[in-house]
């Protein structure tokens, strides 16, 4: 039996190929009846964006207000790990010079330096995180531009965290469940150890016709959310009537979160 080993290898190779082709066959074998549709009550847009009016936030909001942050983190079961090292956050504040590094200017109006700015995922038009993800676990929704995470697919390589120039991504270094300090929102899943997470522009709320939780929670209307493709949307009107800034525009990512100062 001189050639048996070689033949065995050949046959097993073909078998392995056949196995990998199975899932493909599955897809084609499926019936083409449309079974899934968009929620009829969903908010729809082609290019979601947010305008953050920091002036309103500082002038009208109470000192140290965290309503938007608390609302978001409660709705999404975001844990409070209690250490800077493993912090998980979807929306948070940091100082002007940290959110807009390189834009410091000691003679700035109104002492911008040291003032809190709200930061969250920019849902970039050219998102580097999407470009680098090896499994398409993070992807840009073609219909409305939201940069989404598919937690089922994430392998936890953290390339997206290296890719994101805005520090918008957090990794679950440990099991987050014991650290969820807010009352568990039974309507939304938690995450588990080993996956990356970030703001999803409240895709699950938009689908039910609701605005993002942070926008809804802000009592002074400092956060506005809308469709950039619609000239009559709140965000387009705000952008047309105010000078706005975006974070690190020179990187070509085209952030979709705008700041009024």
């Amino acid at each position, binding site marked *: 039996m001189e050639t048996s080993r070689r033949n065995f290898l050949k046959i097993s190779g073909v078998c392995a190929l056949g196995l990998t082709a199975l899932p493909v066959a599955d897809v084609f074998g499926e019936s083409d009846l449309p079974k899934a549709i968009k929620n009829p009550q969903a908010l729809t847009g082609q290019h979601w964006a947010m305008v953050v009016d920091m002036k309103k936030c500082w002038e009208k909001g109470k000192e140290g207000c965290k309503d938007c942050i608390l609302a978001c983190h409660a709705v999404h079961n975001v844990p409070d790990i209690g250490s800077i*090292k493993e912090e*998980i956050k979807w929306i948070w504040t940091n100082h002007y010079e940290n959110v807009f590094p390189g834009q410091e200017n000691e003679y700035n109006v109104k002492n911008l330096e040291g003032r809190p700015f709200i930061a969250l995922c920019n849902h970039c038009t050219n998102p580097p995180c999407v470009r680098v993800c090896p499994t398409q676990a993070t992807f840009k929704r073609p219909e409305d531009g939201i940069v989404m995470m598919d937690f089922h697919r994430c*392998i*936890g390589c953290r*390339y997206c965290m*290296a890719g994101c120039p805005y520090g918008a991504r957090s990794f679950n270094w440990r099991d987050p469940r014991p650290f969820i300090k807010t009352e568990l929102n039974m309507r939304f899943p938690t995450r588990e150890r*080993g996956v990356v997470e970030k703001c999803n522009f409240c895709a699950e709320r938009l689908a039910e016709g609701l605005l993002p939780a942070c926008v809804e929670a802000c009592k002074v209307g400092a956060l506005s959310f809308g469709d950039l493709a619609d000239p009559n949307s709140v965000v387009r009107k705000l952008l047309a009537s105010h000078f706005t800034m975006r974070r690190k525009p020179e*990187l070509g990512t085209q952030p979709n979160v705008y700041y009024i100062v």
Partner: protein
Amino acid sequence: MLERALTGDKRYYRWLMFLLVLMGLGFASYLYQFNKGLTITGLSRDVSWGFYIAQFTFLVGVAASAVMVVLPYYLHNVKVFGKITILGEFLAIASVTMCLLFIIVDLGKPMRLLNVLLYPTPNSILFWDMVVLNGYLFLNLLIGWNVLEAERKGVHYPNWVKPLIYISIPWAVSIHTVTAFLYAGLPGRHYWLTAIMAARFLASAFASGPALLILLAFLVKKYTKFDPGKEAIDKLSQIITYAMIISLFFVGLEVFTAFYSNIPSHMEAIEYLFFGIHGHGRLVPFMWLFLILAIVALVLLINPNTRKQEKTLKIACLATFFSMWLEKGLGLVIAGFIPNPFNEVREYAPTIPELMIAIGVWATGFFVLTILYKIATSVKEETAPSI
């Protein structure tokens, strides 16, 4: 041929046992990490890649450097490398094995590793890195094995191996280029965002890889009857000399561009590495050690007398290897994350379990290497003309 790995003297087995113990400790630490999560490492939200990925990056270089013996031998017919090519190829196999292991231990969800194949994503450099690394492993296994087997039988290796050898040459360059692209294509990580990243990687690889190869060749010569040959080592040491000079030159280029342009984001990572910023400078001693070792290596390598002497050459090789390890296997990856996107400094230091896992992976690599070298040297001893 495998059975040659099973017969050895006491020292051989003792060494393997030692490696197995380290592998066991590493594996136990990995189980700990597997159960607790990557929280047991020193990694953080801000420095999200660390020791593992740095080792991976460095070892890709060692793997790629095999080309430095294969290319002259097969393309330029540099005969003196004839004996040593197999050592280079087997070193590449062991290094790529370590690379793949370091990627796996770094994953948050290793069970989902196959997702990379299930959802192939050509726009991700990591996807390509996986493709080229596995391809390189496969190529070297095929080539090394067949060439050695042919040698054992005293025949010429099969003809179909030749094209694979030619392919393996640009392929070696590709693994390190693609690995450099992992870093060099990210907006907002200024230390990495440099067009010469791939060139820097290759230069430092062609210094550190052959340096390790020379040290291994000396070990092989000492412990077996197989002598890789003085001329081969001579030639390799010349390659190291040039590669080392070019490497340091490239580092100098980075420093010039950053500091003459005076752009803060370009200067900060380098300042952090060599002087510390915002009162943080954990890597400073390591980076100065890198510089000192690099200079020692250069002095010993450039001077032909010290380069040709076995003792000083060994020191030069050790200095080269460790200086490049500090620069690439430590500084480069970590400094890319410092300062973070908010211009804050959050430092990183590996933890004990993290180091244990890394040692376990290195031990695995050396285990593979030992076995492969055992086979190679046994075959060489058998086929060597008896005097």
